[in-house]
């Protein structure tokens, strides 16, 4: 029985890891090899041509930096804003609390693809297109993150807040110096989800920028696909590897903490 489970789990691991290996293997092949014997996993010869092309075609480092700066800013802002909002929604009594909560939750279900036209028509006249502002500010608040922080705050004992008040702490001090460390696992989970999403977001950065200097890595990797020609899979996969590796490496390095953060009672 146990052995059966282990075998099944090994298979599961293969189903999840296999595609990555495949992606990496493909990126080392030649197109010719791909077209003729695509199923053979191991490249006949490890060719770096695809990578050479990727790195020569694109300022990869610059785009990666843009991506990381953007995703980090978004993550930090989301955490910074979710804390007071989550605190108010979880711990304070005031009129309109239910309404506020419902408003936040309603925004949880709206994807950017349906809001971008009005947003663009708002930001455009302000001259904000092509700025970090346009990439970051619309995502400065995460409805989901606010919800998670609220849930985490619910389990913080009121006494702690009262103790801090008696100790002379103001509300902002309480939020950022007392409560933030307490809900750190939730913040970490929230940051992770947000970072990963925005780091790899293609749509919004493409739509909100018309200038290369502010572009992000996924937009750049899209360049590797050919509009109106054939797809050269080895190059696309090399681009994919370049796009994916930073997050995967980050994840592998920090996976213990990340998994713990995510599993640390994300919900009430």
């Amino acid at each position: 029985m146990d052995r059966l489970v282990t075998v099944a789990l090994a298979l599961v691991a293969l189903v999840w890891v296999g595609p990555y290996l495949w992606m990496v293997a493909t990126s080392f092949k030649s197109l010719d090899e791909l077209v003729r014997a695509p199923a053979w996993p191991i490249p006949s010869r490890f060719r770096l041509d695809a990578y050479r092309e990727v790195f020569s075609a694109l300022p990869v480092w610059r785009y990666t930096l843009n991506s990381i700066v953007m995703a980090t800013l978004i993550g930090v802002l989301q955490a910074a804003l979710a804390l007071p909002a989550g605190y108010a929604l979880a711990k304070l009594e005031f009129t309109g609390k239910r309404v506020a909560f419902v408003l936040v939750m309603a925004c949880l279900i709206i994807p950017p693809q349906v809001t971008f036209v009005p947003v663009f028509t708002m930001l455009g006249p302000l001259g904000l297109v092509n700025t970090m502002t346009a990439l970051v500010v619309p995502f400065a608040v995460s409805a989901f993150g606010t919800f998670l922080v609220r849930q985490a705050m619910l389990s913080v004992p009121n006494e702690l807040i009262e103790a801090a008040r008696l100790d002379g702490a103001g509300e902002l001090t309480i939020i950022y110096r007392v409560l933030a460390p307490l809900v750190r696992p939730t913040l970490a989970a929230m940051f992770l989800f947000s970072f990963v999403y925005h780091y790899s977001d293609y749509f919004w950065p493409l739509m909100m920028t018309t200038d290369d200097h502010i572009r992000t890595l996924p937009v750049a990797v899209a360049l590797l696909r050919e509009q109106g020609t054939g797809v050269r899979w080895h190059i696309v996969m090399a681009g994919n590897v370049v796009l994916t590796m930073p997050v995967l490496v980050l994840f592998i390095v920090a996976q213990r903490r990340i998994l713990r953060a995510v599993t640390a009672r994300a919900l009430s």
Partner: protein
Amino acid sequence: DRPARPAGEVAFWFSYGGNNRKVLLELVSRFHREQSAVRVVPTFQGDYFEGLVKLRTGLFVGAVPTITHVVGEVVPYLARAGVLERLEGVGDAVLSDLEPALAQFGTFEGAEDEPLVALPFNRSTPIAFFNRTIFRELGLSPPTTWDELRAVASRASLVGEEARWGFECPVDWWFWTALVGQAGGRLVEDGRITLGGEPGARALELWQAMVHDDRTMRSPPGRDFNAWEASNGDFLAGRAAMIWTSTAFVRYLEENASFPVGAAPLPGDVRRAVPTGGTFFVMPKGLPAPEREAGLAFLRWMMQPQQASEWARRTGYMPVSQAGRRELEATGFFREHPNFKVAVDQLSVAQRWPWAPELFRVQREAVQPRLEAAVSERLDVRKVLAEARLVAEAG
């Protein structure tokens, strides 16, 4: 208002990846080497659709490029909306040298009274590619009629372990239009959208017959570029003996095939006919005069024979400059690369699109979404087209 661009800067939005982008960027650098007054900043804006949305939103908020390129079908639409600048300023020398069938007035029927708003850039027609090895082994030559097409396709098909399609072609509006023309039909007749009438139906029936009766053509594998990629991929892998696709792929297919690639014009039915495709340069209306002039300077340069021929040589698109074409002939490029010449020769039977603002909607909303189902599920083609006509007329 949008911040003024630095003097002499031309913002150029494009939608290419891969090799085309490389060639384009190299052309731009050469432009910069040859002069210093105008500086072109080329920026990728996503695929054609995304690029077009960005142009539209850009127009809405007043953040537009100097130049962008758009697919042919939307030119009449944009022109009618009054958002495009006239481009006569590139000069008569350039205009008179343009390949007539590829320029705005040769591409669109009924555009003669309209202002000139589009200059051709990467223009193409569909052509046939065949696997010379297979054709030689089987003693086949490229078909010139629909009957020959079916015969060749069935000869070249293999079933069983090493299955091979005799013929493959994206079930796409573009190729359907080619078939309609070959069957003697026109999309718009006397200002009414007919979608070809009976010839339109026959075009679809040809595909249906090849897919379902002959089983020599692969059933449509997916929409848009997936279908295109699939047929290219099958061809390169030897799983399709002959495909129809754009001339733009000449270089890609030649370079990546492990067999000699042959190209041939499309066959005819009651007549020979092909549509043209690809994109045009356009310029938004209302730019400051210096920027407009700078943009025109770049366009003028791009239309010159040398650039036109280089672009054609390195990609497979057709040279838009007559002098450029003559240069390719003169230098023996076409002799060495006969496949590149097929499309150019085929221009003699190229059909003009109607100058109809609703053209792209007819394509995208009315026809295109119905083609695949009609073929793969063998629907009653007349009913399908009647339905499409209704949608097209509803607007």
